[in-house]
């Protein structure tokens, strides 16, 4: 399929997506924005009334806010996997979806970054987190994993935004060259004076490669740090050494599923079939099988090790996970994350776009429940039976959660209609097979 593409056809296909949108597009934007407003309203209500309007209470202090935080950080990860790690691996199939995946990363990190704020009782005092000399004798505890998190997430946001923008430069120049009026002025600024000279290309390709090389360890460290928010404690079910790699794999698992969820409608609406080919989606599907296997390995190892340890608290934690009050959530997690992706081993399943779309949605659901099982389950049922207790989210929490999904899709929908959602530059590189700029 890709052989029939030409430079001009790539440009035309991508630039056609930037024509003034129809009314249905604005209706969708308005709907999503309403969702964002609803979420913001819930948050304002929480600020006015107090954090108690959420369902968090003893012993479960971390509810959906932390679940959503980890969920969105996880979604962010596969963007970097696709744009950076697969770039280093010279996997050509990542080129058509790299831009959209990296965009997903940036917006998902932004969404994730809101949740620690939402979780604060007095959000206006958030500057206490900053290491500023002050009369309050307050100083952030840099030994706390939560402080590690602040540093990790903000670094990740910075690097992935820069990587995303750097990758977009040549494409912005293409749009600038074809645009007129105000648009031309805007894109002239955005393109940072790109001329396409040899020297500029040379710096660009080296810079892009270095970004990829820097983003790769970063993506692993960020989700490792997120996992250590839990693993560095001594709570049974949290304190386990496998958490860092397991969280990284899980994050990529959910992110790949989200890529499929976004790409299938995108290619349908924007008629990207010649660019985002079936082969591309199939490759993502195969990668989902791989990450699903790692996640399955981690689930099995945790249970085995709890049993092997003969430690009564560990054994009870995992028995209760599978058979206790949250058994339904646990089995949703296991089924959606490990069993259902195995169907993608069959070529017929992974080449059927509708089935693939449904599976990607189910993996997303499963990965949300994974965070639920880990975050809620462990503290709800830890050492002291006297301190056991259950948790369920309140309506306000649901409101904020729906708002976060709306915010993510709102930003994404705005992006795809105003910026090139496929990297024209990298698609052209794909035409020269083997001549990728990954040195």
């Amino acid at each position, binding site marked *: 399929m890709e052989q029939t593409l030409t430079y001009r056809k790539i440009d035309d296909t991508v630039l056609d997506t930037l024509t003034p949108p129809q009314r249905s597009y604005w209706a969708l934007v308005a709907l999503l924005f309403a969702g964002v407003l609803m979420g913001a309203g819930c948050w304002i209500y929480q600020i006015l009334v107090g954090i108690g309007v959420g369902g968090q209470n003893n012993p479960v202090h971390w509810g959906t806010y932390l679940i959503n935080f980890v969920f969105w950080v996880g979604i962010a990860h596969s963007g970097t996997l696709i744009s950076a790690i697969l770039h280093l691996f010279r996997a050509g199939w990542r080129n058509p979806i790299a831009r959209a995946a990296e965009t997903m990363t940036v917006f998902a990190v932004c969404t994730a970054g809101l949740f620690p704020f939402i979780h604060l009782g007095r959000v206006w005092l958030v500057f206490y987190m900053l290491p500023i000399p002050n009369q309050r004798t307050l100083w952030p505890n840099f030994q706390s994993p939560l402080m590690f998190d602040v540093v990790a997430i903000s670094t990740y946001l910075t690097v992935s935004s820069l990587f995303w923008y750097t990758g977009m430069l040549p494409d912005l120049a293409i749009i600038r060259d074809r645009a007129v009026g105000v648009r031309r002025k805007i894109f002239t600024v955005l393109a940072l004076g790109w001329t396409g000279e040899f020297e500029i290309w040379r710096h660009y390709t080296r810079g892009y490669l270095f970004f990829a090389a820097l983003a790769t360890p970063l993506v692993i460290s960020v989700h490792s740090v997120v996992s250590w928010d839990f*693993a560095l404690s001594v709570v049974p079910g949290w304190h386990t050494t496998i958490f860092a790699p397991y969280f990284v794999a899980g994050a990529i698992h959910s992110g790949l599923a989200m890529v499929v969820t976004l790409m299938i409608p995108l290619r349908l609406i924007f008629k990207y079939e010649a660019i985002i080919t079936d082969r591309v989606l199939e490759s993502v599907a195969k990668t989902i099988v791989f990450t699903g296997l790692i996640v399955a390995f981690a689930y099995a*190892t945790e249970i085995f090790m709890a049993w*092997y340890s*003969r430690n009564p608290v560990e054994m009870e934690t995992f028995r209760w996970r599978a058979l206790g009050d949250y058994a339904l959530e646990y089995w949703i997690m296991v089924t959606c994350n490990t069993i259902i992706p195995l169907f993608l081993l069959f070529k017929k399943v992974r080449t059927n776009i509708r089935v693939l779309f449904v599976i990607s949605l189910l993996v997303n659901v499963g990965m949300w429940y994974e965070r639920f099982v880990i975050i809620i389950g462990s503290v709800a049922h830890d050492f002291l039976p006297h301190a056991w207790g259950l948790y369920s989210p309140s309506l306000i929490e649901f409101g904020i959660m729906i708002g976060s999904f709306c915010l993510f899709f709102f930003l994404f929908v705005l992006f795809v209609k105003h910026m090139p959602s496929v990297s024209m530059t990298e698609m052209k590189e794909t035409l020269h097979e083997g001549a990728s700029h990954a040195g």
Partner: protein
Amino acid sequence: MATQALTNQENQLPLMKIFYALAAAGALVFIAVAAAGNPARAWQAYLLNFLFFSAIAQGAVLFSALMHTVKARWSGPLSDVAESFAAFFPVSLVLFIILFLGRQYVFPWLHEDLHGKEVWLNLPFLFGRDLVGLCLLYGFGLAFLYHRLYFSLKARGAAGPFGRRLLAHWDQHPLDEARLAGRMTVFGILYLLAFALVLSLVGYDLVMATDPHWYSTLFGAYTFVKAVYIGFGALIVLSSLLHLSDKNGYRVEENQFHDVGKLFFAFCLVWADFFYAQFVVIWYGNIPEETAYIIERTMAAPWNVLAWIIFVGCFIAPFLILINRRIKTMPKAMVVICLAVMTGIWLEHFLLLGPSFHHHAHHIPLGWVEAAVAVGFFGLLAAAVTGYFRQFPELLQDKKADRLKVEGA
């Protein structure tokens, strides 16, 4: 240089003899120490070297299975060399069975009260499951290799005795090539899966359980990542030596060295990451029954010195050196680096096992017994690999048609 003679028939026999002699010398030392003086030390050295050299072979073969599974197009000659390590699989299996004789000395938990862990930690079950696991792993590996050889030999012809017999067999019983290619992929994937599961099992049973009260969920994954690290290291060493030798036609392109060097570099990071992911969680959590294992091995004398040597040799030094792009394309430099890393991982095996066997040691109990047994095991591995190339010398001849094209056709 020993490997220069690999394809040279006249020189090859002495080379085999040297390797056999090394193996025999190692075996003699082992038997002498086991029979006369210190059987515990001999068997513990045996376990250490069994784990180390088997991991090399398992990790190197993984390279080929992995490259085939992900449809890599750059790895042709490197895969050929990686597959040669599969010749050690049968030897490794026999060595594992022999380990049963030393069971008294390598399982410190045998006479301990295990508080219910006897269900998992008992000799018949342990040997049974590990033997089945290794049989599966090696079975998948050899089945994968058989299919690979089919396409290699069909394309290049067979010059060695075993290769000719295989080719004659295939000529008599023609096979459906499309089905064969499909089966090869299946066996490759099965090998990858078995690699993760079986090496985890071996890690839990033969290494982690030497301290039966300690456990770490990442230990299995850490074990197989380590095997990949040293397996790739061994692959780089062997292919570099073959490439540098002018006695054969085996050549590796500069960019291929660069790519495999990058992979080695990546696994250097993964190894350090998996080490640190365990270390930081246990250190920070500071739960007595967990943290004692770490303190004993990394902070308390005499083992802490060894721990630092390993960390510098396997992570800090290779990380700083391999950041350099050019060094990865220089086979001679890579041989030195990879050998240093492999030595580091050998010591790391010793660090994990040692404190469980030598409580309250005042100095690191590492000496000529461990080294001699290592030489013996090296002899066996080298003889197996040399023997493989003697059977299939065409793999070291000038590169012919790209195998992937043959398979695709």
